[in-house]
């Protein structure tokens, strides 16, 4: 017998987070990971898997990990470096000597699987590949999985921009939205006493749907967020109607995983690590929302609160 819940209301504590690349500039140095992964611990994986592993390590720093911990990731384009490497070599060599390492590292779920392997996470391992909403779908899956299991989850999204893709962008080819790369990982869930957490916030609401659903997500809400951080095509206000009834800080996505870095920034502002002035607020907020919309008409909303709120 399955249990029906409303995912729109949830209580998913976030204990740590880290970000990489474009959109991570507003975070304190300790929460930023280079897109050029270094260190022997990250050996063995492709570029994005290694960055993801270091982001996950940083996000869960100081927390006791259990074998049941899950890894849920998003990526719009996947491990393009290895995909390009494998396909280019295959074409040049006329399929004579394909490269096994590049193949196994090219699959989209190589990122989450590498993190799980390195951190011995034997719980759920999922990878969403739905463009700029991949992170939102990963967060949705982690929230429901946490509800079932009570386990902790690394949730993140990452995208990169290797040579062929970059050239495609230079030519103005559709399908890649921004000439940057990056992403973020957060660590949350679990069954620990959240009052003992020294820093962090909690996700209290998540919505997934289409852009025409956005006004309904804001209508009738008793406690409005103090600010909506929006990542998506410009002028979303036209779609909101009279909602959301609070200020909107709009910035176009830096890269396909911008929703993840934008969420990391919101968490940092709620924690007081980053200045609220970065998003046009004069004082530290206790309740922020992150809204993602895409040219394809997808939409997602997360509402975050500081632990004290």
């Amino acid at each position, binding site marked *: *017998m*399955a*249990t*029906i*819940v*409303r*995912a*729109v209301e949830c*209580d998913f504590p976030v204990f740590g987070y880290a970000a990489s690349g474009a959109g991570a500039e507003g975070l304190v140095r300790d929460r930023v990971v280079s897109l050029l992964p270094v260190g022997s611990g990250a050996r063995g994986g492709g570029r994005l898997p290694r960055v993801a592993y270091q982001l996950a390590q940083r996000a869960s720093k100081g927390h006791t990990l259990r074998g049941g911990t899950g*890894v849920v990731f998003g990526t*719009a*384009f*996947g491990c393009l470096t290895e995909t390009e490497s*494998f*396909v*280019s070599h*295959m*074409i040049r060599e006329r*399929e*004579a000597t*394909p490269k096994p390492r590049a*193949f*196994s*590292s090219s*699959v*989209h*779920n*190589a990122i*989450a*699987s*590498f993190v*799980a*392997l390195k*951190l011995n*996470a*034997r719980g*759920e*391992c*999922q*990878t*969403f*590949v*739905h*463009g700029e*909403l*991949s992170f939102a*779908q990963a967060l*949705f*899956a982690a929230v*429901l999985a946490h509800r079932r299991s009570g386990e902790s989850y690394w949730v993140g999204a990452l995208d990169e921009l290797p040579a062929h893709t970059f050239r*495609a962008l230079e*030519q103005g*080819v*559709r*399908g890649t939205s921004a000439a940057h790369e990056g992403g973020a990982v957060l660590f949350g869930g679990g069954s620990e006493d959240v009052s003992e957490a020294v820093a962090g916030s909690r996700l209290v609401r998540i919505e*997934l*749907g*289409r852009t025409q659903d956005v006004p309904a997500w804001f209508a009738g809400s008793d406690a409005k967020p103090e600010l909506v951080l929006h990542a998506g095509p410009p002028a979303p206000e036209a779609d909101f109607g009279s909602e959301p009834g609070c200020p909107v800080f709009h910035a176009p996505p830096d890269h396909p995983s911008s929703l993840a870095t934008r969420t990391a920034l919101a968490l940092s502002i709620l924690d007081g690590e980053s200045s609220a002035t970065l998003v046009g607020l004069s004082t530290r907020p206790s309740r922020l929302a992150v809204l993602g919309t895409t040219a*394809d008409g*997808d939409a997602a909303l997360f509402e975050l609160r500081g632990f004290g709120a």
Partner: protein
Amino acid sequence: MASVLESAPIVLTGLGVVSAAGRGLDATEATLRAGRSCLGPLTRFPSPRNGHHRVGEVAQEWIADPAEPRTRALARLALADALDDARLEARTRRIALVLGTCTGGMPETEEAIESQLAGRGFPERVWSEHPCGATTHALAEDFGLRGPRFTISTACSSGAQALVIGRDVLLAGLADAVVAGGADALCRLTLNGFASLFATDPKGCRPFDVERDGMSLGEGAAFCVLEREDVALERGARIHVELAGAGNTCDAFHPTAPEPDGRGAEAAMRAALRDAGSTVDAVDYVNAHGTGTPGNDQAEGRALARLFGTRIPPVSSVKAIFGHTLGAAGAIEAIVCSLGLARGFLPGTSGLTRFDPDCEVEPLTETVTASPRFVLSNSFGFGGNNTVLALRRRDA
């Protein structure tokens, strides 16, 4: 903290499938009952591997527009059939779409990179097909699906995982119904990739056989319409089976190889049973992942032996019938299980002639008439991404 609103089973009210066995439920059932392998020579595209590998190709006669990206064309067939089978008018309800896929627009990406290497630049049409989500969006638009869209890629468990996410979407109240499944077309990347890992058997895959030497790739698509039971009954829908539970785990062992003792696979099966509120004694059949690679079959066999002990239910693999359709496999096999439950049979293991005792579990070789009530369907992917579905007959 959210409150639990209610409890209700999730049921499958529409099924659509296309594979090397043909299009539709009847063609699939007939092939399964005959135990006929649909593997043959690769003809889809020129390759040095033509003639050296047996694959499961979908007959070109089903493809209405040869210019359409192949994965999308395959998905379109199965999606149309699933909606038709469910007698569900897409435009009158909020229907979500969940696609599981490994390669998405990879055939087009190969073309784009080849073009770039030849100095002709990137053709826009093909490059825009690379993101897996592009397939999902195109299908949702064409079929008028107004609910949220999801795309998931957990390697060879993607199709099964799509059904799990579809169930979550229903439980979260995000849609009235969900069409969930998987699709993957044959392409040079997977053909050469698995060959580079020495994971393909030139003679065609022979799951659990003592001489097995790898998998055979295939292509196809399958979709299931998922609804809450009360909603389905209210509209008078025909219910095929109940999606009673699911289990997800990760081996956390190796990028491509399964954990040799199948601990992750066992944990996923236990999780699915727990989720379904059931026990090993209730299991009437297990559809094995059964790829035919030495490592997978041995690990899976060990997991089954440990889970079931002395009472091992009938087990079989259908990979030698369809080929390993990667992102579609979990969804195709969910439909195989649904057909077995609803129409009373258990498929045999085509390709198996001499059982490998190291696999510990001896699978069915021939298709048998039976009356299963509760079955498990295993799907295990690269990176140790394990998904197990528990399906129950409606009157059980």
